[in-house]
């Protein structure tokens, strides 16, 4: 049994072992079978309720800075150039050219062929280099190609790999294939952190999101990530809340702390702060760190900088004060 702290949240066990062993697809199915169904109405109501919390003054300032350190500054376009990636990396290290007190972001996120450009630009700045791999965003390629994609990105210097799960296999019930792929990719990652993109917009139901979260965590994900940003429905607060519940439950069960990354469609400071409230109220303050929560975003950073300047100077600022893409 876990003890319940004064604030009503169960305390995390001190161990970091992973006692759940999945030896076969049968093990996986029986573990997932133990998950309860999601109360969709309750989930959405709780997400909406938490969204009404308001952060003010010092709390708001601290939250904006925290959110900046959680950003994976992303460019994933067919039209990406080395120049654009260099500009992105420069911005990642010093988001506001006129204010050195702004902290750097957590990571830049680029396609594998541009990882070496990011490595050269970022140097020893401490900003991580994330790369999408495994035939992002569709994931429709053979396992050999996916693994080669991952190995190439890691060899080029990526410290974090964002992989996509095989949604086709998941939706047709072939969860063993989904699990095995994640295990294989995790092995190919070596020391690099693995973020597993569930693409929740394609998983149809909340129950599927819960199951996919557990499959990813059991298979060795360091992070579970909502979306690629390439489909109609991206990160939403209810889905992120559900995934945070999953990592919390997984930590209570196994002691392993898995991160969550919300990606796609988060553009305003207001939205970002809502996510931080949800993180704190669902998983707990342990997750209020770039080690365990990230925003996959590009335009969000400029809005955070605008609000940060507004908080510092008291007057509203114009959007083109900060560099665009």
């Amino acid at each position, binding site marked *: 049994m876990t003890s319940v702290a004064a604030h009503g949240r169960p305390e995390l066990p001190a161990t970091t072992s992973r006692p759940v062993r999945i030896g076969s697809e049968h093990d996986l199915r029986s573990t997932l079978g133990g998950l309860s169904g999601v109360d969709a109405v309750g989930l959405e109501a709780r997400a909406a309720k938490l969204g009404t919390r308001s952060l003010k003054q010092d709390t708001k300032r601290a939250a904006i800075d925290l959110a900046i350190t959680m950003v994976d500054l992303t460019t994933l376009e067919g039209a990406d150039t080395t120049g654009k990636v260099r500009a992105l990396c420069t911005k990642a290290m010093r988001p506001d050219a006129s204010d050195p007190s702004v902290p750097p972001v957590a990571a830049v996120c680029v396609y594998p062929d541009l990882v070496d450009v990011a490595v050269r630009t970022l140097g020893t700045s401490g900003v991580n280099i994330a790369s999408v791999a495994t035939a992002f965003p569709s994931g429709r390629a053979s396992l050999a190609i996916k693994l080669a994609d991952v190995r190439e990105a890691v060899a080029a210097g990526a410290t974090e790999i964002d992989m996509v799960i095989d949604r086709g296999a998941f939706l047709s019930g072939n969860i063993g294939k989904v699990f095995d792929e994640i295990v294989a990719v995790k092995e190919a990652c070596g020391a690099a952190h693995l973020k597993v993109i569930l693409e929740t917009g394609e998983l149809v139901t909340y129950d599927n999101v819960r199951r996919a979260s557990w499959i990813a965590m059991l298979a060795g994900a360091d992070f579970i990530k909502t979306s690629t940003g390439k489909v109609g429905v991206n990160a939403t607060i209810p889905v992120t809340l559900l995934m945070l519940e999953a990592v919390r439950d997984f930590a209570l069960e196994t002691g392993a702390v898995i991160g969550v990354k919300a990606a796609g469609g988060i553009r305003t400071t207001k939205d970002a702060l809502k996510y931080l409230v949800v993180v704190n109220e669902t998983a707990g303050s342990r997750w209020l760190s770039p080690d365990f929560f990230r925003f996959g975003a590009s335009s969000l950073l400029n809005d955070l900088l605008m609000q940060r300047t507004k908080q510092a100077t*008291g*007057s*509203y*600022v*114009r*959007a083109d*004060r900060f560099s665009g893409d």
Partner: protein
Amino acid sequence: MSDRVSVSKTYKMYVNGAFPRSESGRTFVLNDVEGNFLANVAHGSRKDIRDAVVAARGATNKWKSATAYNRGQVLYRVAEILESRHDEFVSLLQLTDGVSAKRAANEVSKSIDLTVWYAGWTDKIAQVVGGTNPVAGPFFNFSIPAPCGVVGIITPTVNSLSGFIATVLPALASGNTVVVVPGSHEAIPVAVTLGEVAATSDVPAGVINIVTGTASELAPILASHEDVDGLDLAGAGESRLELGRLASATITRVVDSDLRDLHDLKRLRAFIDTVTVWHTIGQ
């Protein structure tokens, strides 16, 4: 006498083509010149100014990229709608400005004529303030007037109808979008009714935004907002110097003179940038 319950109008703000209440939820009571209840008015706040500037910024492209001829047609349409509401403005001015029916009617007619006058200016500004520059080479060199962007306007505290038209129309005619704060509480009902005129003419949403409230509270927020490119302080009175100082911190162009002449070419020229273009001859 009938025993109908009186239906009095609540004067809400006009932002981005809609009539929202204040984000703050505040209202105040406005009485007419005789001290009788006239209306509950939305008491705008800092965040209402923020929302209005976002709306005005969002509308800049659509308004400035419309042809000058089209802008003229739209402003002429405003005059048409004003004409159809002539009598409503006459009765309103008697209540808010305390003028006689005859003077009110004169004021409304004058304001409609002024609207037509500014509608005519839209496609003539370029000919007056633009031009071809002599250069030593096989090039044309043109100076073309371009709107400077979002203009904040504190309308005059007197003559609420003609004062509004004479400060807002020149900024619109030169292609800017505006955030208007009525200079006095008494000027609010006419300003909001003009918002209704804008909403029912062809002025695109966001081009005219009206934030009602207390000018002394709202003007500094507008002046210090970095995304406001121009500021007309016609109705700001004593606080002009301080507002000008706030505006200077963000390089905002300021007009701080009283409105003396309704046909004010200075205001028409005030919020224009000049773009210079080179073009080769014979190609």
